[in-house]
């Protein structure tokens, strides 16, 4: 059975809770005020999809500030999945989602990327500035899914990552995502391969040699 590796990136404004979401998911912990992420940071987690398929998730946390886009940008095109995260108590961060979406779309070939919209900090219900309906409306207009999460109360965090992973896997199965040369969003590692780290391109067409 082949093992899969999916690269997933989290995007969204500063302090929407990207790092907290990742920490909750990968370490099961919640730190109230984590240091601001500078550049790109890395997490990973194994996930098993129902039919016994092992998927290694490579999770990239990014700095929300515009200045860091010259770095984070280079990671977009090598991601198969994107979590677009906004803070449900911060309307600005919601309004910026569309920019983040286009930011990825302008660099990545659309067919390859699976998005999921995340409304974060759902535990702060009373402060919510964006209704579920409004967020769902945006998600529908972009043709992507939407999940409300809270790292603090550990609500729907696993679900969000599972949903995204499942969607990617389905798309892969249905050949909506194709493995292209030089692209690291998805790797399929067959058991026979002696060196799983080695990534060389698959030939695009039959060669003359």
């Amino acid at each position: 059975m082949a093992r899969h590796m999916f690269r997933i990136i989290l995007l969204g404004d500063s302090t929407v809770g990207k790092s907290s979401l990742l920490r909750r998911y990968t370490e099961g912990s919640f730190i109230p005020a984590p240091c601001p992420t500078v550049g790109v940071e890395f997490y990973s987690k194994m996930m098993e999809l129902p039919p016994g398929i092992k998927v290694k998730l490579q999770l990239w946390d990014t700095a929300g500030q515009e200045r860091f886009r010259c770095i984070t940008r280079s990671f977009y095109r090598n991601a198969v999945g994107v979590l677009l995260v906004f803070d449900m108590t911060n309307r600005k961060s919601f309004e910026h989602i569309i920019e983040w979406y286009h930011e990825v779309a302008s660099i990545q070939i659309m067919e390859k990327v699976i998005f999921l919209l995340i409304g974060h900090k759902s535990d702060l219900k009373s402060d919510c500035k964006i209704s579920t309906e409004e967020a769902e409306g945006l998600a529908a207009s972009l043709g992507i899914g939407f999940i409300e999460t809270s790292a603090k109360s550990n609500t729907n965090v696993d679900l969000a990552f599972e949903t995204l992973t499942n969607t990617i896997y389905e798309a892969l199965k249905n050949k909506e995502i194709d493995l292209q040369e030089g692209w690291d969003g998805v790797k399929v590692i067959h058991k026979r391969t002696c060196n799983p780290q080695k990534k060389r391109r698959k030939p695009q067409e039959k060669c003359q040699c």
Partner: protein
Amino acid sequence: MVNTVSFKKKPRSNGDTTTHANGESKWSFQFSLTDLKSIKQNKEGMGWSYLVFCLKDDVILPALHFHHGDSKLLIVSLEKYVVLCESPQDKRILLVNCQNKSLSQSFENLLDEPTYGLIQKLKKDPYTATMGGFSKVTNYIFDSLRGSDPSTQQRPPSEMADFLSDAIPGLKINQQEEPGFEVITRIDLGKRPDVIRREPVSAEEWTKNMDSEGRILDADFIKRMIFKGGLCHALRKEVWKFLLGYFPWHSTREERTNLQKRKTDEYFRMKLQWKSVSDEQEKRNSRLRDYKSLIEKDVNRTDRTNKFYEGQDNPGLILLHDILMTYCMYDFDLGYVQGMSDLLSPVLYVMENEVDAFWCFVSYMDQMHENFEEQMQGMKTQLIQLSTLLRLLDSGFCSYLESQDSGYLYFCFRWLLIRFKREFSFQDILRLWEVMWTELPCQNFHLLICCAILESEKQQIMDKHYGFNEILKHINELSMKIDVEDILCKAEAISIQMMNCKELPQAVCEVLGMETSAVTTPDSDTGEDESVTVMRRSASTYQNISMPVTAASGTRDTTQHLAVTHSAQRLTPT
């Protein structure tokens, strides 16, 4: 067009040059990329890499051996011009599927810069450029760059080892590894000296070095002591102002008092500027608004476990906020970039004074400015410089990292952006920073600290065969686990090794700010004295030395002609 260039003997100083001075070698060759059919790579785990080019007319060119590894860089370079794909029959063979490839310009393409820089530098100075950071090969190459005809001379293989060792002093040639190949292992950096650190500078030592009017008598001496041992905590508040350049070393106490008065006025004038912006004004100033909101967010999550910043409504938080806001007015173009709060926090903690902390922070930011600028050029430059140093120190490890797609050292990003702030405990950072601020023993000492840390982790990374992900994870998890004194010892020892190396590559000299000629020390000098002399020389001269590492910005040859300067040739054609 690929040109390889064969090796040329360096004229001896006594004029006894050999007959090969203008000669060519049959190991030089050139071909057009449009004629390239396939490239065969070495077997896994061979110890070094080689490439064999096969042309469309089935001509097989002599193998190019990369004794320091890194054939990948050449492949990366070639991939800008041709599409390479693995042969279904043999994964060692890359088939050429010629078409133009557009280059994406992003940070991830950092590797392009060294490649490009290397090519530019090789044209100017093939000897040192190749031996320097991005030298990917062991042999190189004058002839083709000079446009000579690669067919007039042949050299018996037995001569080659001589040529190599003669022209590259310090290189060890090992002819045992595989018959027919000479393997050049490395530049000999000599034995790493043992370094002992001293006690932190005491208040008594500090005042002893001050005249009655408060002038520092021997700033260099004090700096050397701080470099060797740091400062006792009680002295930091005063001495950091000198180290950071807020106070001139030769100023009197009175001059400093006057300076502080002036700077206090200046600070509050700037503070008033943002303080007096009305809500209405702010609505029309999106940049100020953005800076402000980001500062508010970051202040709330900077060192909150430190006593000075913990809890709600801690005055430390307000100071942190106000200084960062005032810095925005001081340098509105840069404004506030995440990471700056990390740099300010220890400075404010030590100063316990808004105005002094601000001006010390300004000085610190002068050093760190480039890291935070629009395209983060400072970060790119430093990663390239680090790679230059690491390659000299341990080319095998560099090659390993490259084989794991980690050659561009991105995992050191956070270390460099905020000078290890998140890698060490708060107290250790105070020590590390004051040592670095002495600007001893050479320029860019912080890069040697990176080298020292990486070297300590090398064995685990390589033994466990960590890949791209594991390396990043491992480096991330080093945070708070590194012993600051150990690392300082190690980094200093590396600096002494490099300064004592008589054949230090030019690129390395440039990074460390040393005069190329200054690295030769008299043989009679030994031990500690020697290193001190060298240190002094390099420290006093470093300001004059430019850093052209990433300065190669000429016009890029966009045609299909690529002067690839990688070589290393087969010494015994089989």
